[in-house]
């Protein structure tokens, strides 16, 4: 008799719990009513803080749109560039809306959506240096944020030029790079054109000027999630597509960056 009651209870419990056992990240987000986005907040206009210290920017708005589409509340988790993936893997954030370049090397570890933005890189330098274009960086002290797309490309070129007076320094945050540049620790950096324009315009760091385009491939950036969360990644792909299709992406681009939304498709190949 008692055994029967126990068995029935166990059976009921199994029935109740079994859908949970199949829950994936997308289910978890919807069930918890909360979407935690890893966003880099020293990377204006994509992510920064306003005078009230509230997170703002293209990436912040994109996260809010994503949360709205999912019908949940958005929560911004600030992560410096190197901490984006640890934040996802350790479960502190659900998705990364953090201008993450979609390199094949990284795709071995993390899952990328289709690109939601694309950057061109420019040289950012200080008034008074004789740096006018990318080639004139040779023999100068340069630096960038460790491990970013432009940092890898710049360090490679600095090594290739092999000028004893030239150097490359890797900093942990974008803010440190701008600080080092404005102080004169380094003479130039390579940074995405949108960030360069926003930083020069904001005027927080004095005497910074743009010194021409950097001849790198276009830097496509994607939303990121855990590699095995196909359900979530599928949702992110559709979300990016809808953002562009509905004109919302262009709206955000006008608000934060200005001009036309960068071309996000590549001619001659499927994603």
């Amino acid at each position, binding site marked *: 008799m008692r055994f029967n009651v126990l068995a029935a209870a166990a059976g009921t419990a199994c029935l109740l*719990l079994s859908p*949970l056992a199949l*829950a994936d990240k997308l289910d978890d987000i919807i069930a918890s009513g909360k979407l935690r986005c890893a966003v880099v907040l020293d990377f204006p206009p994509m992510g920064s803080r306003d005078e009230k210290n509230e997170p703002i920017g293209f990436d912040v708005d994109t996260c809010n749109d994503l949360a709205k589409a999912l019908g949940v509340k958005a929560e911004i988790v600030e992560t410096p560039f*190197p901490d984006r993936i640890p934040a996802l*893997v350790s479960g502190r954030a659900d998705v990364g809306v953090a201008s993450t370049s979609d390199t094949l090397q990284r795709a071995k570890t*993390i899952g990328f959506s289709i690109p939601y933005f694309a950057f061109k890189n420019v040289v950012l330098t200080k008034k008074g240096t004789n740096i006018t274009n990318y080639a004139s960086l040779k023999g100068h002290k340069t630096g960038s944020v460790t491990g970013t797309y432009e940092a890898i490309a710049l360090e490679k070129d600095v090594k290739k030029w092999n000028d004893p007076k030239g150097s490359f320094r*890797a*900093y942990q945050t974008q803010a440190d790079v701008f600080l080092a540049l404005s102080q*004169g620790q380094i003479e130039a950096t390579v940074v995405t054109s949108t960030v360069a324009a926003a930083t020069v315009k904001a005027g927080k760091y004095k005497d910074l000027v743009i010194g021409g385009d950097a001849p790198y491939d276009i830097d496509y950036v994607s939303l990121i999630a855990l590699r095995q969360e196909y359900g979530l990644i599928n949702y992110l792909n559709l979300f990016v597509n809808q953002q562009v299709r509905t004109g919302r992406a262009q709206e955000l681009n006008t608000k934060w960056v200005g001009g036309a939304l960068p071309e996000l498709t590549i001619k001659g190949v499927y994603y």
Partner: protein
Amino acid sequence: MPADRALRNPRDVSAMNYTFHWHQALEALPAMLAGALVTVETALLSMLIGIACGIGLALAHNSGNRLARGFATTWVETARNTPALFQIYMTYFGLGSLGIFVDSYPALLIGISFNNAGYLAETFRGGLRAVPPTQMRAARSLGMSAPQAFRLIVLPQLLRTVFHPLTNQMVWAILMTSLGVVVGLNSDLTGVTQELNVRTFRTFEFFAMAAIIYYLITKFVTLASRLVAARLFRY
């Protein structure tokens, strides 16, 4: 992370949604060992500078000169009561804002040496007090000059007293070199590890390996110092 998630994906051994790729990490081992060499070099150099400055500070503190005493006290108080991170950051960005440019590596070296000197000054001061003043007097009465007596009688006894605290500080110096990343250093063990991490996103493998390398280095230092101590201070 709910426990039932582990049922869905049997490879989630760590409850962290992460599968370890040791192969990739092991391939980067030579680069990390080269970084470890820079780490050890920096720590050794900073110890040498720290010991020299530390003895100077301890003597300055014990001297009658008020200016020297004030200087030593300021140094020791700043070095011991502010974070090493702050000291290194100020050497780089703080001096930078005044137009004095110290490159990443020297900034790290100056920062750690400054910190070492502060701690070691106190160690040496304690060591000096442990040598009875009668030793100095006895040496002088045997006809030694003051510097001679200090070098031949006081210093050897002092070094014996402070040997183990010195080892401690060496371990501490090795670990402090990891702060170089905040001032843009990318050649030491932490710098190399962090760069590999952001390039590949294999965070846990690289940091686990770095932790093991740090552990082995410090373990080696403590063991070696124990052997040296056993040889030097037999009686």
